[in-house]
């Protein structure tokens, strides 16, 4: 390959907002319910029904705009995007084209080389999600479920500022954290509450002009995004090397096959005939409204990292990991607020929590144990009511179902036995039963004591305080 190419990437990121109700009607946004059980005349496009904007959607959209350094549009409108498809009950989607709520923003990402760069945000607009289409093999037809129809989305359109898959991932991670910190969405790629379409073109290195771009859809994991970017880059470079042209089109990524294919149809004119929706009135954002939303903005990651360092004195690495997930940071702060033991709380999060998350494939956003219970567990462990081994055992149960550690320890008889008399008796029996180990210890093999401790713990069903066992053993030997 003679020429050097540069990849130019822009993203269109759809984020499902964490509102209780849909964008234009009072239907619940709850997931996983019976098909069409969360629908009404508005979100099924019944004749004569009319939309009314959910205030929370506007507030979230503005909050995301402020957090990504956008200008907030003071006079905005909704537009209709007209296209026929069964997942779209009105055959138009209510969206924003002419006056989107936010414009001209950007976020800073760290590049591979360790530098910083800003990815520009062209605009953020509000719109409604579509319903779900399910293929019915038996009847060879499609079934439509409108539960997702009208769920609020924001679409964040970046400038073509990214040059590699790494930068794309860094940008997405940055957006995800900001939006999660705002509480505006849980941003789960796999579940579709965050979706990214990749606009990609290649050009000869050093060229100032953009090449023809394609739009890639159906990317639902960071891995798929990385693979799709690599695949599309190769495909476009191959075309150019063969002297052929890249066609501007929308392509669907098939992650299983590792290739994309064009989504084309002669019935699909791609002419959406946008015009202002006469059923919705303009949005006027006042200074007061902006101040109110600004006042509600949470502490973002950078500020949090700084504060953790000053306030809690825990290692930088721990801070990095804990603040990397909003839910983790929340658990940390709330637990510390109860027990005032930042280092210990951090250890539980960095150790057992991360281990179990990996083992059980649980997202941070789905962590279930409560800060109160974690604080209690630390206290039980600190005061010697349970030993470390038992504490880990109890934590695993808490991790799964957030049980009260006190109650669980009580019910399962897991308290350490601190009755010295009983312990002494057990140890005497262990010594009597293991003359060889006793001999070994006495002849200088210090390690042999470990075996005797183990045997004692076994006899005590793990409930003895290891320190005390050690102490008594040494005494008796």
């Amino acid at each position, binding site marked *: 390959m003679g020429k050097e190419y540069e990849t130019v990437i822009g993203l269109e990121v759809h984020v499902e907002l964490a509102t209780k109700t849909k964008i234009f009607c009072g239907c619940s946004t709850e997931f996983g319910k019976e098909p069409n059980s969360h629908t009404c005349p508005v979100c099924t*496009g019944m*004749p*004569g*029904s*009319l939309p009314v*904007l959910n205030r929370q959607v506007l507030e979230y959209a503005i909050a995301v705009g402020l957090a990504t350094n956008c200008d907030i549009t003071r006079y905005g409108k909704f537009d209709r995007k007209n296209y026929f498809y069964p997942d779209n009950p009105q*055959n138009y989607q209510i969206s924003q084209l002419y006056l989107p709520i936010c414009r001209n923003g950007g976020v800073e990402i760290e590049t591979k080389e360790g530098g910083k760069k800003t990815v520009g945000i062209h605009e953020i607009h509000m719109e409604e999600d579509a319903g779900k289409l399910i293929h019915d093999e038996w009847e060879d037809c499609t079934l439509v479920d409108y539960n997702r129809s009208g769920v609020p989305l924001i679409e964040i359109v970046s400038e073509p500022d990214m040059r590699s898959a790494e930068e794309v991932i860094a940008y997405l991670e940055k957006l995800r954290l900001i939006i999660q910190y705002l509480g505006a969405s849980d941003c789960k790629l796999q579940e579709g509450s965050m979706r990214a379409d990749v606009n990609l073109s290649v050009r000869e290195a050093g060229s100032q002009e953009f090449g023809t771009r394609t739009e890639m859809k159906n990317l639902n994991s960071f891995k798929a995004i990385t693979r799709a970017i690599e695949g599309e880059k190769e495909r476009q470079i191959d075309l150019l090397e063969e002297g052929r042209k890249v066609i501007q089109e929308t392509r669907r990524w098939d992650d299983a096959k590792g290739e994309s294919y064009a989504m084309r149809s002669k019935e699909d004119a791609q002419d959406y005939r946008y015009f202002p929706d*006469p*059923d919705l009135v303009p949005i006027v954002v006042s200074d007061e409204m902006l101040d109110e939303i600004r006042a509600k903005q949470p502490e973002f990651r950078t500020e949090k990292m700084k504060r953790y360092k000053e306030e809690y004195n825990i290692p930088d690495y721990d801070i990095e990991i804990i603040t990397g997930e909003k839910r983790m940071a929340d658990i940390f702060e709330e637990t510390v607020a109860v027990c005032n033991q930042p280092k210990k709380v951090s250890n539980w999060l960095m150790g057992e929590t991360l281990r179990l998350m990996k083992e059980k494939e649980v997202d941070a956003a789905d962590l279930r144990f409560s800060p109160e219970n974690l604080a209690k567990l630390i206290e039980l462990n600190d005061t010697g009511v349970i030993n470390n081994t038992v504490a880990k055992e109890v934590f695993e149960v808490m991790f799964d179902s957030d049980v009260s550690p006190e109650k669980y320890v009580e019910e399962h008889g897991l308290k350490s036995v601190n009755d010295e008399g009983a312990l002494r008796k057990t140890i005497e029996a262990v010594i009597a039963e293991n003359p060889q180990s006793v001999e070994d210890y006495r002849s200088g093999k210090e390690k042999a004591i470990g075996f005797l401790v183990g045997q004692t713990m076994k006899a005590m069903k793990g409930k003895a305080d290891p320190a005390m066992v050690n102490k008594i053993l040494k005494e008796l030997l």
Partner: protein
Amino acid sequence: MALLDMTATELAAAIKEGKTTAVDALNEVFERIEAKEDTYHCYVTIDKEGALKQAEAVQRQIESGELSGALAGVPVAIKDNMCIKGMLTTCSSKILGNFVPTYSAEAVINLQKAGAVIIGKTNMDEFAMGSTTETSAFGATKNPWNTDCVPGGSSGGSAAAIAAGECFYALGSDTGGSIRQPAAYCGIVGMKPTYGLVSRYGLIAYGSSLDQIGPMSQDVTDCAAILQTIASHDAKDSTSVSTQDTDYMSALEEDVKGLRIGIPKDYFGEGLDEDVKSAVLHASEILREKGAIVEEFNLSLVDYAIPTYYTIAAAEASSNLERFDGIKYGYRTKDFNGLHNMYKKTRSEGFGEEVKRRIMLGSFVLSSGYYDAYYLKALKVKALIKKAFDDAFSKYDIILGPVAPTTAPQLGSSLSDPIKMYLGDIYTIAVNLAGLPAISLPCGKDRNGLPIGLQLIGDCFTEKKLLRTAYTYEKARGAFGKAMEQTGKAAALPEKEGM
């Protein structure tokens, strides 16, 4: 007085006083319907059983004192583009030929709360697109004043039903004159309220920025009572306006002293029928005699209203009617090959010619490359038209003019030339573009005995002033009379000449 000679408010008073009952009144209406409906064809759906049940229930509530409003117990007809829970609602279109809504229009709910007895749904131009009621998929309605003539449209069924005594009052909807023009042709009163005064929830949209539900009635008093009942702020309609002062009955006073009335000279130019012109000017003379200050002025931009309107209405309609696709409700074609073929066949078979014509035009003016030249341009001219009215209302309280250039044309004479038909909307259409209220009331008859309508236009939310002016005129005019019952051929109407 025979029951059917009463106005709606007179009937409600008689029921309240125990002189008659809601059930008796309804039975009389049904007798009339039985006798005349085959001739006039005012209704798409008649719900005899439901209406009787409703009448009985309402009668009990009136007797117990629960209901005492000005319309309690009175039978009403609803234009077939307003949803009523459990009642067929077709928009006079094949594509909704079997649609039974599971919810009711807010205006209908307001009427029901006030004790209205709903007779059924009236015929209309398909999706309210037309001015003759001839584009209905279920056949034309005839004008009770002369059955060779159209009743006007698109609320032609509602207007004819009132004129024929097949109901006491009705609801219509007005996007470009669809209440006022049939009211004029049928010799009744019709009012298009200020945009936003009556909720559009449950009104099947044609042009959402222009559509407005309004009263159609035998006289101005009924009109005020109906408006008072249906005007309400509705949280389900974002464009619904909250107004405190909806006591429209209190505006029914004979008093126009010092009222400034402007007559737009540009409403009396070429194309206006002489009989219509003289009747309307005569009405202005009556108001002058009653103490109003009447002046001529130039409204301007009159000729631009129609192209502006048809661009905007067609664009909105093309989008509003996309939901009729054979998936969720209504007609679906029998044989098709795949999804897009199903869409195309369903819509081509389900929509009539005029509807398709406007969908095509609307899709075109919004399409890539034409949006700025047509749609955006129309929105700008709309702003100019609004400004022309603002200027006029800085000088006048009321604008007075004709409703339509002619009286009711003959059946079958309008549809062949769409542009000529659209020109008939010249005096009504700008009112919708500017969101204004306007009322149409009878002010005379032409040489063939067909009713002529007087139009009074007010500034936004000045319905009271409008009603007071109309009421004053109506009192001075005296009884207008009911539709003549001509069975034979009326005198041949002269061809209306080029406009």
